[in-house]
C-alpha cells in the first residue's frame, strides 16, 4: 500500500524524468544497445496508432460541435471540449510512451506499464453514457 504522499513523490519523479529525457534526447541515443530495427518500427507504428486515436478524438470534438445542432448548447460545448482535450492529452501521451518504450528496449528492460488505456476507455464510456441520456431524456435546446 502506498500513501498519497509517496504517490505524489513518485508522480513528480516520473514527470521530472520525462522532462529530462525530452530536453536531452542525445543521452538516450547513447544509452544501452540499439534494438533490432523491427522492434523500433513496431514501436513507431504503435505511436502512429495512438496518434490516429488522438486525431479521431479531435475530429470527434469538431463533429459534435458541427453536426449536433439540436443538442443543448452547454452539453454540446462540454462534450466537444472534453473530446478535444482528450485528443490533445492522447497525442502528448503517445509521443511520451513511444520514447519510454524506445528507452526500455535499449536498456533491455520490460516495456512500461500504463493506466492510460483504461482511463481513456472510462472517459469515453462516460461521454457515451451522457449521449445516451441526452437522447433518451430529450435534452434538446
Amino acid at each position: 500500500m502506498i500513501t498519497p504522499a509517496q504517490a505524489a513523490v513518485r508522480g513528480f519523479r516520473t514527470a521530472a524524468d520525462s522532462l529530462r529525457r525530452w530536453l536531452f534526447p542525445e543521452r538516450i541515443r547513447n544509452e544501452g544497445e540499439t534494438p533490432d530495427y523491427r522492434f523500433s518500427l513496431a514501436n513507431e507504428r504503435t505511436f502512429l496508432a495512438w496518434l490516429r486515436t488522438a486525431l479521431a478524438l479531435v475530429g470527434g470534438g469538431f463533429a459534435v460541435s458541427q453536426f449536433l445542432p439540436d443538442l443543448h448548447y452547454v452539453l454540446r460545448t462540454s462534450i466537444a471540449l472534453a473530446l478535444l482535450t482528450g485528443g490533445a492529452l492522447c497525442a502528448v501521451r503517445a509521443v511520451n510512451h513511444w520514447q519510454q518504450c524506445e528507452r526500455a528496449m535499449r536498456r533491455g528492460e520490460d516495456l512500461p506499464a500504463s493506466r492510460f488505456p483504461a482511463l481513456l476507455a472510462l472517459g469515453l464510456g462516460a461521454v457515451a453514457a451522457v449521449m445516451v441520456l441526452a437522447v433518451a431524456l430529450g435534452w434538446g435546446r
Partner: protein
Amino acid sequence: MPPVQDPGLQPERTRLAWRRTTLSAAVVVVLAAREAARRGAAPAALLGVALSVGLLLVFLATAQRRMHQLGSARPADLVPATALLVTACTVALAVLGAVTLP
C-alpha cells in the same frame, strides 16, 4: 542478424501506417477549417482556415520525409523531432478547435 529482405515487410507496414495517419489528419483539418469558416468571411475565420491548412502542410511534409526514409530495406530510427512535430500539429488542431468553438 536478420535477413535484409524481412518477410514481415516492416518498413512498408510502417510507411502505410504513416499514410493512414496523414489521411486522418486531413479529415480533422477539413473539419477544423469548416468550423472556422462558420464565422463567415471575418478575419478570425480566415486566420482559422489558414492555420488549419498550414498545420496540414507541416504534418504532410514531416510524414513525407519519414515515408521517404522508410523506402530503404533497413531504415533509420524515427527521431524525436519528427515524432514531436506531428504531435505538436495534433495538439495545435485541438487548441484551434477549442478556440473556435461557437
